[in-house]
Each structure stands twice: as C-alpha cells, then as structure tokens.
C-alpha cells in the first residue's frame, strides 16, 4: 500500500484562520480535513500516513526555508506519494502547494499532485513541473477535485501513462506530442464541419489560446516635443550580428546607434530573420526601420527628436512568454532613456 503524505494550510488543517497564518510546519499522524476524503478516494491502494500543516504566511514569507523544512519532514515519513491541497483560488495556499510539490518531485523523486483554480497565481509558477488538477474556485468543488487528484496520483504512482489534460482534468504542462489519429486530417476536418453544421456539440482539437489583452499607452499630447524611437521585430542588425540575435525564436534584442546619420546604409546592416524574404530590407534598411523619414519629420518639427538608437529583435516562431519578457525590458530601457513614444515595425 502506498504511503501518502498530504499537505494543508492552517485553515484546512484545522489550526485556525488568518490568526494562525504565521504558524510553521508540523506533521500530524493520519489524515485531517480534506485528507479524510482523499483517504476514502484512495481506498485500499494508499494510506494517508501523515498530514503536514503550515501557515500560509509562514510559507509565503520564507518560501525556500519553509520548503526545506517541509521536505525534511516528508523525508522522515518514507512517502511514496505526495498530495497538496486542493487550494482552489487561495493565492498564497496555491503557491505553497505548487512549490512543495515541485520540491518533492525534484528532491525526493516521488510523484506529487495538487489542485487549484485556473486563476490561482500558483498555476503559472508551477504547472510545468507539477500536475495541477483543475478545480472550482471554492470549497464547493472539493469532491470533484479530490476525485480527480486521487485518480491522477494513483496513476502516477503506478507509472501508468497519463492521458491528455482534458481527460484527466489537469492543467497542461506545456509539452507537445504528435500522436496518430485513426482518421486523416482531411477526414477529421470534414467530420468536424458537418458536426458543427448539424448543430450537435463538437469538440475542436485546438483550443483557443488565452492571450493577454494589452491596454495601449495614453496618447502623446505634445508630439512636437516628443522623443520617438524606432523598434522592429524584423531582425535588422549591424553586419556580423554583434549580439548574436537568433534567426528564429530569438531570446534577446539589440540597440543600435545611428547617431549623426540621416539614414541607414545597406552596407552597415544584415537581417537575422528566417520568416520573410529580406532582400528589400537588405537593399535599403530604411524600408524596415525608417530612419530617413523620421529624420525628415524631425527637421520639419513634427516630432521633437528621433531617439538615436533603434531596438531590434526577431519575431519569427517566437513564444509569447519570451516576447513579453523582451518587451518589458525594452520598455524599461526606453523609459529610462527618456523616450516618449515608439514606432514598431513588423514583417
């Protein structure tokens, strides 16, 4: 029978409410609170031998130290399987569940499962490393969460193949696999369309991504005083690509000065980008990064000043996380350099 250790915060562990949130971790024999339902769900395949209870604030304020203390507690219990929560939409609790599961997997090498709501901040921090079961936002989803967590835990402990997220009820961890369907793409797309037309429920194979919505910055009121910068994801770099910007899925950007120049000269630049035909840019880099036109507007007084470095990276086949990070870094530097507006050119 599997030896299972369960983790709860002060509230679910029965210590008390916010007033006990500073409590350090402690191990108690047998199941407690939701652990009893977990014990029922595991039935004769596992035994909840101990429950570790820790205050949310204690954990949140000392994540590394608290993790180490909890790992030591679990180590002494010879656990085969670790279950944390479910945390529902409780943020500090969710982060604690995710962090401890991650530590258990990495340091103790045993499977660990937790559960939380899609909006829990713990989700994006730990979903790559930890199976996190999707739960309701509150304790009314307890039964459903525990059923899914117990089932998934037992599969993991038995080394069985874990089915796709929609079947098992966990949040995808990001890895992508090509699998073989019983029908060709052509057969499936026609089936899908006919299903949709018949008005019966249909299941897309590709879920809609949840891209962040970005609120545009406030407009520039006094453009004739503004410092405007140029930025591109078209991969324009000085000859030799000094920052080694990758030609696809770039992880970095560069800033390149054209101080004192009214234009960009083709002999000074190359293009590090594999997603478009760059011949016209190489003939005249101003086609991508219009320094010549901006200098003209600067002379006419339409803008205050052209920032004398352009920012460049490569957008091809890139991922949102990387581009968000680069974007933030670029924005911070532009602000620090006193730039009031930026023109982005894409390809």
């Amino acid at each position, binding site marked *: 029978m599997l030896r299972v250790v369960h983790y709860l915060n002060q509230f679910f562990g029965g210590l008390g409410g916010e007033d006990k949130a500073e409590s350090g971790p402690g191990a108690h024999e047998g199941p407690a609170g939701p652990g009893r339902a977990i014990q029922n769900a595991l039935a004769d395949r596992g035994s909840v031998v101990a429950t570790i209870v820790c205050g949310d604030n204690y954990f949140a304020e000392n994540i590394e130290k608290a993790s180490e203390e909890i790992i030591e507690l679990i180590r002494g219990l010879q656990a085969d399987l670790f279950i944390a929560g479910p945390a529902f939409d409780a943020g500090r609790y969710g982060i604690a569940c995710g962090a401890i599961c991650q530590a258990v997997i990495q340091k103790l090498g045993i499977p660990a499962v937790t559960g939380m709501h899609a909006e829990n901040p713990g989700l*994006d921090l730990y*979903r*790559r490393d930890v199976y996190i079961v999707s739960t309701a936002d509150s304790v009314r989803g307890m039964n459903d969460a525990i059923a899914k967590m117990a089932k998934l835990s037992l599969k993991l402990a038995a080394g069985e193949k*874990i089915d*796709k*997220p929609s079947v098992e009820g966990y949040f*995808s*961890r*990001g*890895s*992508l*696999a*090509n*699998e*073989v*369907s*019983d*029908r*060709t*793409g*052509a*057969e*499936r*797309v*026609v089936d*899908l*369309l*006919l299903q*949709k*037309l018949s008005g019966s429920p*249909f299941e*897309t*194979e*590709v*879920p*809609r*991504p*949840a*891209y962040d919505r970005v609120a545009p910055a406030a407009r520039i009121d006094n453009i004739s005083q503004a410092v405007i910068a140029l930025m591109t994801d078209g991969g324009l770099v000085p000859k030799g690509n000094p920052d080694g910007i*990758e*030609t*696809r*899925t770039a992880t970095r950007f560069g800033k390149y000065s054209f101080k004192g120049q009214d234009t960009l000269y083709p002999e000074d630049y190359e293009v590090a980008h*594999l*997603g*478009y*035909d760059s*011949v016209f840019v190489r003939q005249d880099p101003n086609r991508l990064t219009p320094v010549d036109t901006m200098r003209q507007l600067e002379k006419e007084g339409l803008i205050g000043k052209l920032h004398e470095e352009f920012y460049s990276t490569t957008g*091809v*086949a*890139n*991922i*949102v*996380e990387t581009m968000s990070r680069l974007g933030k870094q670029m924005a911070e530097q532009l602000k620090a350099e006193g730039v009031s507006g930026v023109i982005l050119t894409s390809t």
Partner: protein
Amino acid sequence: MRLELHNVQIRDIRFGNTTRIQDGALSINRNELRTLLEKDRRFGQVDIELARPGEKCRIFRVADVLEPRAKMETGGEDFLTFAEKHSSTGVGKTCALKGAAIALIDLRKKGGVGGGAAPRDDIIDMSGPAAEFSEYGKMFTVALLPQPKEGVAATEYLAALKLAGLKASAYLARVGESVPADETEVYDLPSLTDMAGGAEGLPKITYIYQILSLQYEPIPGEPTLFHRQAEGIMPTILHPNQVLDGAITSAFPGLNTQTYRIQNHPIIKELYKRHGKDLCFAGVIVMVAHNNVADFDRMANIAAGMAKWVVGADGAVLTKTSGGAPELAMARTAQRCEQLGVKTALAMLHMGADYKDAKFGALTIFDIPEVDAIVSMGFPYMKLTLPPVERTIGYVGHTPGEPPPEGELEKPLGSLCGSLCQLGSSHLTAIRY
C-alpha cells in the same frame, strides 16, 4: 465536369533503352529524358537518378514532388498535363502513374546535412522511420538534378526546375496511356448552378484553399496556377477537378505541401467521397495569403463573400499554406465567413507553436472567438533518428565539420519531405500534455 484517371500502378523502376511500362515496371530512357530537360537554357547538365522503396537511400534538397501525369485523347494538342493552354484541365482522361514520383532537386546550394536554422522539408529517406512518416519513401522515385547554368539567377533556376518537373511528369505518364489501367477513378461533379439538384437537403460545402503565401517573394515565371504565377490573383472559384488535374502546383518554397498532394488533394477527395451522401460539394475557392493587414481583410472579405453569395455555401473547410503568417489570413477569412453565416472548420499544422509555451498553451497565433472548430495536423519539431544509408542523391559539396550525409542523422519532422501535410493527408495530431 467529368475527369477520368487512368491509373497505372508502378511496381518497379529502371533505366532502359526505351521509355515504357511493362508488367508494372517503368523503364526510362535516361538520355532521352535528359535531352528533353536540357533543352531549357537555364540548366547545364541534368542528372537523373532512381530510388526504390525500401532502399537504404537518402534524397537531399527536394524542392517538390510530383506524380507523373499526362492528358489523354487531346489529339496531341498538349504535351504537358500542365499544358500552357489548359483547354482540358479537369475534363476527359488523364493517365496517372501510381506509386511513382518525380523529385525535383534544388542544386543551387551545397552541403546542408546539419540543415539551416530553419528546417525545410527537403529530405526523403527511402527506408527506416522517415519512410514510415512520409509516403514519398514508399514511391518509385525519379530524381531530377539539373545543374544551374552559370549566371542564371536563383528565381530563374527555380522557375525552370518546376517546369522540368511538369515536362518529366508528362513525358513519363505518356507511356502509361497505351497500358491497360489497373484502376479507373472518376471525378464527376456538375456546375454550381446544377449542383443542388437532388441534394437540396444536404449542406453545401465549399473549400477555401490558400495556394500561395506572400511571406516569401513569389518566383516570377513559376507556373503555380494555370501555368501563371498566382501572386496577383483575387480569390477565384475553381472546379475541384481542375485542382486535381494540374491547374495548381505547389509554389516554392512550398512548406509541407508538394504538387503530388495537390494532384491527390486529400480534402478535395474527401469532399468528393461524401458528396451526395453527407454534403453537397460546392466548389473550391482558391486564394493567396497576403502579408499585410489591409490585404488580409480585403481577400477575406472577397473570399467569404464569394462563399456566401456566389457559391451559396452553408459551410467551408479552410487550410493554409507555408508558415505562420498565412495562419492569420486563414483565420481572418474564416471569421468573415462566420460573420456572414457560413460555418467553418479549419485544419492546420502548428508552424508557429512552441512546445515550451506552457502558460499560453497556444497552438494558434490567432485568438478569434468565432473560429472555434480546428483540426490539428501536428507540429514540426518532433525529432526523429534516421539510421545510416548506403547512398545519397542530391547531396553535393560536403562542408568540413558537418556529419557525413550517409550517417545517422537526427532530424525534426519538419525536415522530412511529406511527413507533415498542410492539406490533410497525415494522421498526425498534436496534443498538449
């Protein structure tokens, strides 16, 4: 419009004194074919190599694959299936050599075992795991290797390469005309105005088909649509038989789409199969994927309006071509269809997806609520280990430091010609765990 395919099954391939088919064996007069292709002044010498299924042979730098086809009973009017005049494209009889393929080898570049940073689907293994993923590894293959003539521009060479494929296609398939067919396939579909006769109760389905992406500069003179470069076209209605019978070739660099697939278009064949049973196949709308927002919108509006008001479609299947940007053009077109009341389903490869992107879990680069029915046909980054081979075709100019081309190679699916397909031939589907 009625098209009959006179299918001759090829079971072996060899060089011989006469180009002919005997007992399923295609014999080729190497010199005659070479002379025919060398008439093109954009080429120097044209080599021809053969490869058989199961052989430990690896073909590099495959730019396109075609099925040998020739029009029959045209009174000698046209020489090519892909005739310049296109007087009979989609009607009458066409001879097809099944199980045979012509591989066009682009000899402009040297080396390339390691591949560039961007994988091109340009390798065919005739055995091993790659041949399991790609049906081109299971074909009796005639590889054409034309040397570019000194001073000939890349675009001129590529246009000539495509034309050489079409010439060889007709040259080889012509010898199948006098051989009894192993199988006859008939594609018969009335005009749009007669279409619903007897099929009023069935949903009218059109296929909106991107045939070219302007991500890359189109090659002047490359025959891609009715022997012209399709670059400037507005969305256009075609009869599906015209697509099957040589109206369209895969425009370079046709990522994961070869002319062979268009000749055997999986979605068109599927719609045909179900015509009169589950649906009424209401034509094909071909369009170009543009590279700017104004044209995305313009072309989407035209194509969707055509589906709604000209074709009268209830539903549309959409596919894309090439890499990431055409995905946006496809999605925009689907959205416009939905807004006009034409229901849509899309099938796509995830060229823009990255397996590392857990947070967004994104398999599309668009996020449009109306576009809610999408079939996944896989992603290109899955790695495959290709075992060593005994000989290679199309590999020239080994670069020092590169692994030997005959050796074991690790390659992503996206490098293996025919393993992925934008037009629905494969069984692959991407699942995010």
